[in-house]
């Protein structure tokens, strides 16, 4: 690993453990809520923003073609 050319902030390194717990609880509860909502058919689809996941499928296809 390269040495860092900026100060990551010690507090910021430590706080991530707490941030992660909070995020974990939040994501878990959202997930539960989503499941409950979809059970009752209350989920509205919102596609104004992309999903966080990068689409790898068509890349792999092109890779195959190139090989």
């Amino acid at each position, binding site marked *: 690993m390269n040495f860092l*050319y*900026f100060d990551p*902030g010690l507090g910021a*390194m430590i*706080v991530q453990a707490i*941030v992660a717990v909070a995020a974990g609880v939040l*994501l878990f509860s959202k997930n539960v809520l989503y499941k409950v909502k979809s059970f009752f058919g209350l989920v509205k689809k919102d596609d104004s923003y992309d999903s966080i996941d*990068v689409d790898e499928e068509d890349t792999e296809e092109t890779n195959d073609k190139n090989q």
Partner: protein
Amino acid sequence: MTKTSKTHEASFRDPSGYIYHDGNILRRKINPIYFPQYKKLKDSGFFKTLIKNNLLISHEETSVSEDQIIITPEHIPFITNPYEWGFEQYKQAALLTLKIQKFALSKGFILKDASAYNVTFHKGKPIFIDTLSFDFYEEGSPWRAYKQFITHFLGPLVLARYHGNEVFNMLQAYIDGIPVKMISSMLPPKTKLSSVLYPNIHLLAKMESRHSEDYKAETKIAKLSLKAQNNIIESLYNFISKLSLKEVSEWGDYYSKTNYNETAFNTKKDLIRNWVSSLNAKKLIDIGGNDGTFARTVQDLVPHIMVTDIDSNAVDANFLQILKNKEDNILPFVCDVLQPAPGIGFNNTERESLIHRLTEYKPDVTMALALIHHITLSGNVPFKKSAAFFAKFSKNLIIEFPKREDSWVTSLLVRKREFINYFDFYNQSEFEKGYSHFFTLLKKEELTETKRVMYLFENKNYDS
């Protein structure tokens, strides 16, 4: 011909490599210290996937030797900086950064920095431009760029939510992001109840001041699992994608409030189209161009168009239209003509001033429609001075002059109250005189049924 090779003014912080100008071409030199990362990123198809998905700027490998690798990235005609983005643009840039970090983690890499300057807008979308920002993920290590993400992205966005888009101007003063303590102090107390904002901003600010005196780096840093790090990123992503401005000022009404009818509106559009096509323009900038309505009349004629406005809501409206219609040749950004973005950072050249970037961009046509009365009457800028401003970067200038009888001009003049006589110079002959110092008049046409005149000028001293 001698080629000039000059290091790019913003490229000195990262020892992995730097960007330099090879004549007119921008190239990136990679130092041996970064070879292992670069080779892995390349061979594993990591770069390829990101480029394929239009998330990272594409590049070609120009040369490889033992002591340096040179890559040439795709040319980006104009770089906009974070303080020139509308809220939606800023948001998309933040989401892009998180998306790339999440993908990097899944492939055993991390983003080693999360600077907002790593993103710019190109072909209608945000794109990551720092190809060397990746490093190997180290098992259990927290995200070193986490704080940078907060000061560059989450902080400014949340502040903008509560204080308006103008908050982004603060980034001109803080090139490495708004200090966490300041973000925390500027947020309303109720944000302490937010399960995202409390830990990511308020608690972070507390921890940072508590640990600011650890000079010997003795404090132990807890390990953070990959899953935990993914949770942070995902929760930030969810939070930011739902973020909106608290007071969305009513926008979109502008053209229904115009003081001229549809016939005049269409005459103006036809005239612009005619003039622009006669100039065979490759690059055009519409200053004060609102949501890009008039720029779009020449969209099929001009390969690269920029539209600026002082109103960030108009810039956002333009940007959303670009995303919706998948337009790839319009670049909107926020610009206050009376106070264009200055050169900032080390040497005042790390992020170049707007004027500097425009001089390099060299637009073939500059449009300034319904703008001169604002510059002259709201900004009190004499005609000769505004002419000098346009002459700095414009080859041709299409400028609209609303006469004194125009209702908007009248309203601006009336507001001068007892000083109204000071503005007697606001008339066509003084305007033409002021502009004649720098420009040659090519065409002039009255817009029928309006109190406005359209001018086409050519720069007298343009160095092309």
